[in-house]
């Protein structure tokens, strides 16, 4: 039996192209920053530096083995696979499709369950929307996100193939955090384009909880969460953080949940504060 390392090496060409895509995005990121600096297009640079700092800490955590959790978590479930999917020509398209669907539901639950939102809000709390937003990902995401890939492993997809597919889905999304690319016609309805993703980062009622897709917008059309881009958009969250402190950005919502759990009376209310929709507690209190 091949080791995981040998299995990864079998896909070296794919990994090489992912490196090339990363370099292309780095060029885009530098160009975006230079453009905004020269033409004074950013209100300030605090958010960009905060995003950069968050990214560097994430890179450090990966070195420390946080990324390995993803692999270990999935390897445990591999022997429990129900099917043995043959590696025919349709294997990779199916793996990518399954990874994209898994990503859709992971992303949707991260928006609709407050405990997960406390993690994912890091990516949404910036009032700015530019290429550096792609770097703004929570420090604790990799502790649990692998759980959403377990169904794929149980269905019989390989651990390595699943990991590569989800990495492709995640890496695809690096270029869509920008206002420098306008609407792309019919493509905005099929793929997660910058226009489709600007809607996802909007904080107005018509944009909230919309366009969860990773690569394809198909899932949003299927499950009723698709929204085309409005003329005006306000980025960020409904209650702005008001700080660019990376530690506050990462843990503020956890603090808010903790305060609500202590403050609220009754197990039902405490559970609502933890697992209800973000804002459900306030909504309930206001209606009483």
């Amino acid at each position, binding site marked *: 039996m091949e080791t995981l390392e040998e299995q990864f090496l079998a896909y070296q060409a794919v990994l090489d192209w992912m490196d*090339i895509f990363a*370099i292309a995005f780095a060029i885009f990121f530098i160009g975006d920053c230079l453009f905004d600096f020269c033409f004074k297009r950013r209100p300030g640079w605090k958010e960009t530096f905060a995003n950069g700092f968050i990214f560097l800490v994430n890179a450090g955590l990966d070195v420390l083995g946080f990324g390995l959790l993803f692999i270990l978590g999935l390897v445990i479930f591999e022997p429990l696979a129900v099917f043995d999917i043959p590696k025919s020509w349709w294997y990779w398209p199916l793996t990518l499709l399954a990874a994209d669907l898994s990503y859709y539901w992971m992303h949707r639950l991260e928006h609709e369950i407050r405990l997960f939102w406390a993690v994912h809000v890091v990516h949404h709390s910036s009032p700015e929307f530019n290429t550096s937003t792609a770097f703004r990902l929570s420090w604790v995401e990799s502790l649990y996100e692998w759980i959403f890939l377990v169904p794929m492993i149980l269905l019989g997809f390989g651990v390595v193939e699943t990991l590569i597919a989800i990495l492709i889905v995640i890496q695809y999304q690096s270029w869509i955090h920008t*206002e*420098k690319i*306008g*609407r792309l016609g019919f493509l905005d309805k099929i793929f997660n384009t910058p226009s489709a993703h600007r809607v996802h980062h909007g904080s107005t009622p018509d944009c909230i909880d919309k366009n969860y897709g990773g690569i394809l917008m198909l899932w949003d059309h299927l499950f009723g969460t698709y929204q085309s881009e409005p003329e005006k958009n306000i980025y960020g969250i409904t209650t702005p953080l008001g700080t660019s402190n990376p530690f506050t950005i990462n843990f503020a919502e956890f603090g808010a949940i903790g305060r609500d759990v202590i403050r609220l009376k009754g197990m039902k209310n405490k559970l609502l504060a933890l697992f209800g929709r973000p804002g459900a507690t306030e909504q309930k209190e206001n209606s009483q």
Partner: protein
Amino acid sequence: MRTQKGWILGFLGLIGVVKLPDIMYAVTGFGPWTDLVHLLWFLWFLNFIPDFDQGEA
């Protein structure tokens, strides 16, 4: 925000991404420096930049 008329031509910039390995070899000295000319493909991406209305960021 209005998309440029020739936005579809922006996709020609992807040729620059395909040529990126050659560009990297040229930058690191392992390939002919003339391959740097492929950087010009990236200019096609400028077709994607929308026209912003007055007052927009």
